[in-house]
């Protein structure tokens, strides 16, 4: 018998996230909230609720690889934001998961724009270079945190160096020392507390990173810093992910060898800082050609990264295609690649049997930012894409212009 989470999407142009091209006229069968099969031209099993995609593009629900959705409401009003701490003791132990707000309008907007998964990361602590620990999100109602403490984030570079005294060398030294101390916790080589850089809570938070069990996400841009990240990963045997990476294209081969994936912004084709002098639009295309796992993030404005993360991610991927990234790789960079990078590919990221049925059906080409989902499916269930923004639009739509009553009555 069919359950509420059983469904068939028929006549889909299915971009699976894993394939090199679309599955044309695909039938996507969902059972128990998970993908059961994706096959071209087959009839759906009898008894299933059928959703006719009418030839439209269908993708996995998108995965925002680096955002602060859930942590930010009104960026200009501090009491509505939780993405950073500017005073107090916390460093690596700063864990943003308890602050995650599923009722945020930014969460609603992201979902409506096609995003169902996100890595929401912290933006800073008083303990440079540590930003804190991120959370893996599946956007919906209720609790959206799938995995708290999903990765440890650090930021290294010119503009971030002040908190470490003004030199990026100090940032690298602090990071290296802290990881070494964390690795020694409880062992014979452990430093006495008064000689440690960090307190016990912070070191304990870093311990899984030092042990290679937790991802260290390094947000940095300059070639020299990327090379240092590669060296650190090799010497301390860390699982490193590069975020930003404006000059990563210059180190593509080394990143492949080190198996370090990169989250890049193809829209950032201007050197907004001296760390990004090598910024170029085809960064993602070059990295992809070299064999680096590439996810695409919109990062250049807070607006893009948070408020419009769905639209801006797709625009960034479209710009990457315009700069030479193959289309299927661009879809992958918003779906399977970020899922792989953040260790969620067993659950999500592609339309493959066994994965959760988180699906977007598009009213056009998803990489054209003007397109939008016509339907969103989460765990096999259609979900609403209605936003506050759309409701305001309805209230003030030109069709109402002869209504003698103020819009507040609508």
């Amino acid at each position: 018998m069919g359950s509420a989470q059983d469904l068939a999407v028929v006549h889909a142009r299915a971009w699976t996230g894993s394939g090199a091209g679309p599955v044309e006229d695909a039938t996507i069968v969902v059972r128990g909230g998970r993908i059961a099969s994706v096959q071209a031209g087959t009839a759906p099993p009898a008894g299933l609720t059928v959703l006719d995609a009418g030839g439209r593009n269908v993708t996995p629900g998108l995965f925002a690889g680096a955002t602060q959705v859930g942590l930010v409401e009104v960026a200009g009003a501090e009491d509505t934001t939780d993405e950073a701490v500017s005073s107090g003791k916390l460093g690596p132990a700063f864990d943003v998961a308890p602050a995650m707000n599923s009722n945020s309008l930014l969460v609603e907007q992201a979902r409506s724009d096609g995003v169902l998964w996100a890595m929401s990361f912290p933006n800073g602590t008083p303990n440079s270079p540590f930003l804190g620990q991120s959370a893996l999100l599946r956007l919906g109602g209720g609790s959206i945190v799938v995995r708290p403490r999903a990765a440890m984030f650090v930021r290294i570079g010119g503009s971030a160096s002040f908190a470490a005294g003004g030199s990026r060398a100090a940032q690298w030294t602090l990071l290296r020392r802290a990881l070494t101390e964390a690795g020694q916790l409880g062992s014979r080589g452990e430093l006495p507390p008064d000689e440690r850089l960090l307190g016990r809570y912070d070191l304990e938070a870093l311990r899984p990173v030092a042990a290679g069990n937790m991802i260290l996400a390094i947000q940095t841009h300059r070639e020299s810093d990327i090379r240092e990240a590669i060296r650190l990963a090799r010497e301390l045997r860390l699982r490193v992910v590069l975020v930003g990476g404006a000059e990563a294209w210059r180190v593509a081969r080394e990143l492949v060898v080190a198996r370090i994936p990169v989250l890049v912004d193809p829209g950032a084709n201007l050197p907004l800082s001296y760390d990004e002098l090598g910024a170029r639009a085809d960064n993602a295309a070059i990295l992809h050609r070299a064999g680096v796992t590439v996810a695409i993030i919109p990062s250049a404005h807070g607006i893009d990264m948070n408020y419009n993360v769905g639209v801006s991610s797709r625009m960034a991927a479209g710009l990457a295609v315009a700069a030479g990234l193959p289309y299927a790789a661009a879809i992958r960079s918003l779906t399977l690649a970020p899922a792989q990078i953040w260790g969620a590919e067993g659950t999500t990221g592609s339309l493959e049997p066994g994965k959760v049925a988180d699906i977007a059906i598009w009213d056009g080409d998803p990489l054209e930012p003007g397109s939008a989902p016509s339907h969103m499916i989460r765990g096999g269930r259609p979900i609403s894409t209605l936003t506050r923004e759309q409701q305001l639009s309805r209230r003030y739509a030109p069709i109402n212009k002869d209504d003698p009553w103020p819009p507040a009555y609508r």
Partner: protein
Amino acid sequence: MLGRVCAASVSLLLLANLPIAAAAAQRRGPPPPEVGRHFDDAAHKAWSSRYRPLPRSDLLIVNVRVLDGAGGKLDGSVLVRDGKIAAVSGGTPPTPAGVQVVDARGRWITPGIIDVHSHNGTFVAPLTANDSEYSDVSETSSPIAAGAWVEHSINVQDPSFFRALESGVTTLQTLPGSIPLIGGRSVVLKPVPASTVAAMKFPGAAQGVKLSCGDNPRSFFGSKGRAPNSRMGEIEILRALFTRTRSEKHGKRGPGGPIDAETIDGVLTGRFPVHVHCYRADDIATMMNLGAEFGFRITAVHHATEAYKIPQLFVENGTCAVLWADWWGFKTEAADAIRANAAFMDAAGACVAMHSDSPLMGQRLNVEAAKAMAAGRRAGVSIPPERAIRWLTSNPAKVLGLGDRIGTLAPGRNADLVLWSGDPFSVYTKADMVLIDGAVAFDRSDPRRQPSSDFFVGRPSGQPR
């Protein structure tokens, strides 16, 4: 403000530059004549344009899909002679002697993109820590920086100018920021390589004056224990200033001294286009009322995220709404932004222009327009491409008081145009060729026609193409 991730604050710094809508219904009828053209007068000769067109030849572009910027669309050809549009016609006319033929092979042509809200040249890439201490975007030592001219801040080597050109921008207005109530005078530029700002200045274009409303002035000065620290305080200061300037015949002893008074007097006598940074409908109406009290028209309200709530005020005042497609929520006064704003305003008969406020978005105003069109369509208002292109061409030209020189492809207009690789409203489309005054200022297929900033010369991590 320097890190990518801190970029919300970068945006906030810039987002200060919008215009305002007004409440006065008394100024009906056609918009007043364009202002400011005559202001390139003797007193300001020292600051006048020294722009000279790049070397050019006459061109006939055939087999092209034309969006003419005035609402027209046709398949045919465009003839460029002596830096002007000579003819736009259906089919392929005979080639006049001495004219080079470009076969567009079905590609699209539009007037050059006009960005009326840029900070290029003052928000200079790469930013450094110094920019967070003091910048060239705004003079923030006083809420009244009326006497400041942003052209005196411009760094002509800002790589953003070159990126703008490569993406089809042929005219841009750099505005002072929105921290002061009166930010000073804007400058209208052509993104052509030059060693002085004078050589980029659009000949004869009026300077605009930048006014701000709402959160930015009150929060910046209020947090320093200075005035204004409220919205009503902002209007009080402006009314006091305008009243004094008006009463002192020629305003030579205005509160900010003769230099401030010169600008304020120019606002009150309608010599300058007035650009107001404003978000909320009530704030916009307040600024329009201020204009009504002192007898000046607001040319454009920039940002205007709530313009859709008061379209008639824009129509009645002949004020243009200068908009983003979808920026919202980053500050309380931007909470009610809707994506159908541009489409709703256009449907109401108001003038609409898209703006960037950002050197990255300044490269993709065409995609911004595409997003705004799509949002309109979903909200029940379909704007066809030949109409939406006005948001990037003829409407911003009007805002700058240059509607009879740029923004449309019609005989006699400056030959500022873009040959696109495809549909100009697609994210995949690039500007293949950009003409300014008939000269090929950028050609994607010709490395000799791809200028780059001196900044990149000889840098090991510079930008290979």
